[in-house]
């Protein structure tokens, strides 16, 4: 369980996140939607514990975030930032194995190796295991980073459900790999974990998410089940665009079509 109460983040005189409250139950996939500058990434970084918010409280599995030790959190919670800047020539396999750091005593166990390769296989990156990370394309790098966070939360302690925080994980991926990445995240939530994911692709949100949080100007505009809340009316209010819902057919699920206003 991830609970946020009256979370407020300020930078100077600007309020980036304004008294936001919500709860995310275990076994759910929640998308965070909102226009650029709505405070999604700020909210995300506060949830990741990268800074102390000006007001409110975040708790994870019933314990306040600041009360958790970093090493404890790292065993069941993984965070994927929007972009990663690794310049050193590690191999792809080495990068994914870094995700196993919270469980390692200094050497790489056979189990770590198996989990790393399973995560690479999920991201369809097995063939790249021995390639040097800096030689990959942007989308390939992102798939390696996704494999790293999947490997990190593959063996959480029994008492804590794994938590996956993803900030625009599929922005640089091609359509097939967008599906693969979100399928992998979905597998984490259906196995009882918590997935919180920022996306801009509303149809991916419709397809994979159970819950949504809609942010605009730092405020929570809407939250609830995707099937009830992700309506053309919400999309129009959130993004200042025209939206139209196309009902599900034999071959395709229901989806949203957007047009400029």
């Amino acid at each position: 369980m991830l609970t946020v109460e009256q979370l407020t983040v300020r930078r100077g005189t600007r309020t980036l996140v304004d008294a936001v409250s919500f709860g995310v139950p275990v076994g759910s996939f929640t998308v965070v939607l909102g226009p650029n500058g709505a405070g999604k990434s700020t909210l995300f970084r506060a949830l990741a514990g990268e800074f102390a918010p000006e007001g409110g409280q975040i708790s994870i599995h019933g314990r306040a975030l600041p009360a958790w030790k970093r090493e404890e959190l790292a065993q069941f919670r993984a965070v994927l930032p929007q972009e990663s800047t690794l310049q050193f020539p590690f191999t792809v396999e080495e990068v994914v194995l870094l995700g196993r750091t919270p469980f390692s005593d200094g050497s790489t166990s056979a189990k770590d190796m198996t989990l790393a390769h399973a995560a690479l296989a999920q991201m369809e990156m097995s063939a790249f295991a021995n390639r040097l990370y800096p030689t990959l394309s942007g989308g390939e790098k992102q798939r390696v980073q996704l494999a790293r966070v999947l490997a990190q939360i593959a063996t959480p302690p029994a008492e804590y459900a794994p938590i996956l925080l993803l900030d625009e994980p599929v922005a640089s991926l091609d359509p097939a790999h967008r599906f693969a990445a979100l399928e992998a995240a979905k597998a984490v939530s259906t196995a009882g974990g918590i997935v919180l994911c920022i996306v801009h692709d509303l149809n991916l949100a419709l397809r994979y998410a159970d819950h949504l949080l809609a942010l605009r100007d730092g405020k929570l505009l809407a939250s609830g089940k995707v099937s009830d809340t992700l309506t053309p009316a919400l999309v129009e209010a959130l993004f200042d665009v025209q939206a139209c819902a196309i009902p599900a057919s034999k071959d395709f699920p229901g989806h949203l079509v957007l047009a400029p206003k």
Partner: protein
Amino acid sequence: MAYGPTPITPAEFLSWLEWRLLGMNPTSAVEAQRLAAIDAILLAIRLPRLCVGLLGGASLAVAGVGSQGLFRNPLADPSLIGVTAGAAMGAVTAIAASQAAFMQPLVELMGVFLLPGAAFIGGAFSVWAIYHFAKVEGRTSVVHLLLAGIAINALALAYVGLLITRADYGQLREFQYWTLGSLGAVTPRELLAILPFTAVPLFIFPLLARPLNVLLLGEAEAGHLGIEVQRLKLLVIVLCTAMVGAVVSVTGVIGFVGLVVPHWVRLLLGPDHKTLIPASALVGALLLVSADWLARLLASPAEIPIGIITALVGAPVFLLLMRSRRGTAWS
């Protein structure tokens, strides 16, 4: 050990070892006299010089690994965090100030430790200043750290340049020694003075291999993987300052070792700190001792500043290695 203004043959060296280690007595009075002379040269000059070369080379190289890991930038050099420039600033200040009459009690009190002490304080001070300026919202920003490092380096260079324009001839020679580096002034006392500041960090650094690997992913990412990032960064800065400050204080500024040795090792063995740290220590130690040997050999009986040798030998090898498999990954 054998090479120098007083040549010592391998046979003589062996009989010295037999005499020292195995207690074998010299066979004649002439040989006994010769052995005593060799003994004095080896123990008072060449052995300390060799040890400082090994320790200094290992320290400069490992400090390079540390600062490159800290900045997550393969081009970061220990001088970037201000130790080298600050230490040189402290040293030239001491040289200039030691002329003044009121300074004499302090000069006598400190003895040979005056310059090393001043260099160490200068290095520590500028690191403190850079670290202070680089704090943004309670965290150390790498960009601010690098920019502050550039500013303080420029300030220190200007300061040293100003003192050089006011220096007399004897002081100029000393300034040159400080800016280009030499192992020529090393005695057992200097070896003893730097031993704790270099040996202790060299033993601690390998323990930081895993957190340093994770830190390369990024500071936020390392935090999410359970690393106490702020504590790690402070520890790396303190260890690097101790090592580089101590070495610079007895040898002057020897460039290049801290920048290039970690590069070489990374190009050959990859960026994993578990192998990078010990391998860099080894290569750094061998590089500095070889460079010192060349410095004494090429212009015998005079010496070329060792910093020139390390740059002349290191740069071409570095360019060649850049073309290896690992090297193609640099962008």
